[in-house]
């Protein structure tokens, strides 16, 4: 058994364990153990990865393992990681770990909640470790469907509507994706599903012209690409805390990751041809999401639109197709994952206390719950790109990278996208000012408690991650950058 498969095995073990767990304490302990194990494993993986690279291993993917699965379609269970996947695995582990703690008191049906939670995690981990198109797609879909029940059962507000909308839109995206994957498979010769092997072939440009937009849009739906982002506000607003965290934190990253690993890597020619269309769309996402967030009054909506904006930046950077911008894209995925998870965790905790998410009904919370308040400010600062926190590093890398494209079109778009940082500041500060500062709006709020220990574990872990990424970015950016070279080289060769 390969080392990487552990990342799928642990969630599956958790599934089994959850099935037998009865009491809430057992459920929590098992879940916490699982989360910790994953966190430690991804730490070890990172360390091993650096070890291998330092030892001079130049393979594109490390820790490869390959098992024939369906011979007829050349489907393998094939795993391997490069720096990008390692980064994503780390991110996932952090968010799964904190998600467990954020849902410490989930109600009702804690056992079922964690069953789905772990199934979702298994899907996400699987997606990041596999390099076989089929397995990738399979894990992708595994990750999507638990969302329906997680939101539908444990959510709030118009949860049924939101859950259905989210599921259907994402499934619609995966429908586009599947056509594309099948097309890639057959046009690449129909004898391998392995990403790396397909990358060696050349898919005919005529085919790419159809397959690329399908794949990109397919992943783009999950990456909240305008105009396919509308599941995001409703979905996030209705989802329970841990699900919002996982979804915004990791699942939306599947979109960006897939877009560059499948769409850009395998179909560079079409990527060059059609980048402009998607650049415009992502440019719109960035600005549009930010402007929409400015006038929202529901905390989760604000954050959801902010996610649209930030995730738009991910796809935007990927489409710039140079080393720096793509590094920035991955950094932005990490950064956005962490800080959005932090946001959603905090919003969930605040909501759990105040029972409202409307910023008009809150005020002065900083006095009542200083821990949550300070954490919220930190999250906000990360989101608006304060140096030393993760957002800055990612956004700057993206902008510097995007600016390497010299024509006016790219320049203008870059400047437009960069202006989102101002709007981000507007809505973040608006929220902070309204809910944390000022006078206490509702006298009932004055009696509320600050964070409990499990909430603190969750929040502090995320803050540490945000700060770590933001203040010592070099190790992770190097790791990502080196791993992006094959993709970038392929894209360069395609011009």
């Amino acid at each position, binding site marked *: 058994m390969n080392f990487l498969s552990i990342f799928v095995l642990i969630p599956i073990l958790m599934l089994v364990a959850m099935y037998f767990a009865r009491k809430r304490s057992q459920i929590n302990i098992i879940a916490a153990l699982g989360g910790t194990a994953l966190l430690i494993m991804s730490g070890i993986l990172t360390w091993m990865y650096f070890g291998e690279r330092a030892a001079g291993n130049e393979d594109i993917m490390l820790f490869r393992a390959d098992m024939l699965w369906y*011979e007829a379609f050349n489907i393998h269970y094939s795993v391997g990681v490069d720096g990008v996947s390692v980064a994503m695995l780390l991110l996932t582990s952090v968010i799964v770990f904190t998600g467990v703690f954020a849902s410490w008191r989930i109600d009702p049906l804690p056992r079922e909640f964690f069953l789905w939670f772990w199934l979702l995690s298994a899907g996400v981990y699987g997606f990041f470790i596999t390099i076989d198109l089929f397995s990738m797609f399979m894990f992708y879909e595994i990750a999507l469907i638990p969302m329906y029940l997680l939101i539908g059962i444990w959510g709030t507000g118009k949860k*049924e509507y939101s859950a259905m909308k989210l599921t259907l839109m994402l499934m619609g995206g995966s429908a586009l994706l599947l056509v594309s994957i099948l097309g890639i498979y057959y046009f690449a010769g129909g004898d391998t599903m392995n990403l790396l092997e397909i990358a060696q072939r050349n898919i005919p440009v005529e085919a790419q012209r159809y397959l690329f937009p399908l794949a990109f849009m397919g992943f783009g739906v999950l990456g909240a690409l305008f105009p396919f982002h509308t599941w995001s506000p409703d979905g996030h607003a209705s989802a329970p805390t841990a699900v919002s965290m996982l979804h915004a934190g990791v699942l939306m990253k599947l979109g960006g990751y897939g877009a560059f690993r499948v769409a850009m890597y395998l179909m560079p020619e079409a990527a060059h041809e059609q980048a402009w269309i998607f650049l415009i769309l992502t440019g719109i996402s960035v600005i549009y999401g930010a402007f929409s967030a400015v006038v929202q009054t529901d905390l989760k909506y604000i954050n959801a639109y902010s996610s649209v904006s930030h995730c738009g930046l991910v796809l935007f950077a990927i489409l710039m197709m140079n080393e720096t911008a793509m590094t920035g894209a991955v950094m932005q995925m990490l950064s956005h994952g962490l800080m959005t998870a932090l946001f959603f965790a905090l919003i969930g905790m605040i909501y759990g206390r105040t029972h409202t998410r409307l910023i008009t009904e809150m005020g002065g919370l900083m006095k009542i719950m200083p821990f949550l308040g300070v954490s919220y400010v930190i999250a906000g600062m990360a989101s608006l790109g304060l140096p030393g926190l993760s957002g800055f590093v990612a956004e700057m890398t993206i902008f510097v990278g995007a600016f390497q494209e010299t024509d006016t079109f790219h320049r203008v778009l870059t400047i437009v996208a960069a202006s989102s940082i101002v709007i981000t500041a507007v809505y973040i500060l608006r929220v902070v000012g309204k809910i944390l500062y000022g006078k206490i709006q509702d006298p009932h709020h004055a009696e509320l408690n600050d964070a409990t220990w499990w909430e603190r574990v969750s929040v502090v872990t995320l803050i540490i991650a945000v700060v770590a990424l933001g203040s010592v970015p070099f190790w992770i950016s190097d790791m990502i950058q080196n791993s992006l070279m094959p993709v970038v080289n392929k894209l360069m060769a395609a011009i």
Partner: protein
Amino acid sequence: MNYSAFLQLHDELSLLAVIVIILIYDIFASEKGARYIQPLSIVLLTVHTVLNAFPRADFEVAGGMYQYYPMLTYIKTILNAGTIILFLQADKWLRDDSVIIRRGEFYFLTLCTLLGLYLMMSAGHFLLFFIGIETASIPMATLVAFNKYNHKSAEAGAKFILSTVFASGISLYGISMIYGAAGTLYFDDLALLITNSPIYIMAMVFFAIGLFFKISLVPFHLWTPDVYEGAPTGITGYLSVVSKGSAVFVLFTIFTKVFANLTAEWQPILYGLIVISITLANIFAIRQKNIKRFMAYSSISQAGYLLLGVISASATGMSSLVYYILVYLFSNLAIFGVISVIEHRTGKVNINDYNGLYQTNPRLSAVMMFALFSLAGIPPFAGFFSKFFIFAAATEQGYYVLVFIALINTVISLYYYLLIVKAMFLNKSDQPVERITTDLPARISLVLCLIMIVFAGLLSSIYQQISALSFI
């Protein structure tokens, strides 16, 4: 003529033996002994299934009128398994006062239907085909009308027999045209004789109506919802998988074998049928209130997906088709199993009645949900794999747009499958279905289905086996 050649018809002969034993037992068994007929039928059928589960070498009997190739063993085993599951699920229902005295007939008639399907699939000649399809249809009508005192059941039976005979009339007329034009009805000879001329095209279309009807493709599907709603639930399940699955398989073999020269003609026909079947059925399914009627539309849309395997007309198509039938069979039967358990205990068949089912019956709703996910093609359930393979088979032949349309439709289908999931898990109800203790046979059947739903996809060996024997 060497009559000993008929001894090679292991499948049919052993099934016939089962039928005869059951018939005789049913006639001669004492009042007391009659209750053993239920376990007896199940055991006999299981033995029959196991004995015939191993592929043999190709052979022909009666100058090619009966043809055998190993894939048939698989498809027949799949159908056998479906029938066993049906028997397990119907066990409790057959102990009802209204039907208990006729329970022997139930087994007899069902197995006759199965025999008819066997013959239909093994046919190498239109006569045997026709005999087979009618042997399957006629007892099926009686089964649909099995609930003698139930008005709906009778109406469904009438609708079924009238429309099925109408369809076979047209089909028969088509066969007569083929005969008139070619002078032979042997598949092997016809494959060489059939050319691209209007008479053959017309004959082919007329002939195919009978199968389209059985597969219930739009617009030949109109009987389906009514019959599914009216028939006893077990029979509905049987109709939706066994009968439909074998019909699709036959459609595949006949279209690719007999009408191979007309491939360019029938592929566009199927193309259109797939698109309207999937789309229309999906649109119709959305508004259903009765779960059996709902499953009827679901099965129509699934038929459209099945045809993706036919239209690809390749070895991949065949293997993915058989695999799809397998997965579809188990998924659908799991759903019908749950429906029949609940219907039998409470008489509730509306989707609204499933509100809050998870509160009272977590296991039943879990099985139901997994099966629905499997039908919708959600991993890691087998339905995902079967859908992927059948799409792969179609794209291999370049049907990208078709697959795209089908995939968009899976989104709609996911919507209505999720409606059931929503009812069971999300909705609250004042009067939920009470706690049900499932009887042992039904439980076994559900577990079997569940095992297949979960593992038929993850373990590749099943597909590998099928794939190894596909041909075109």
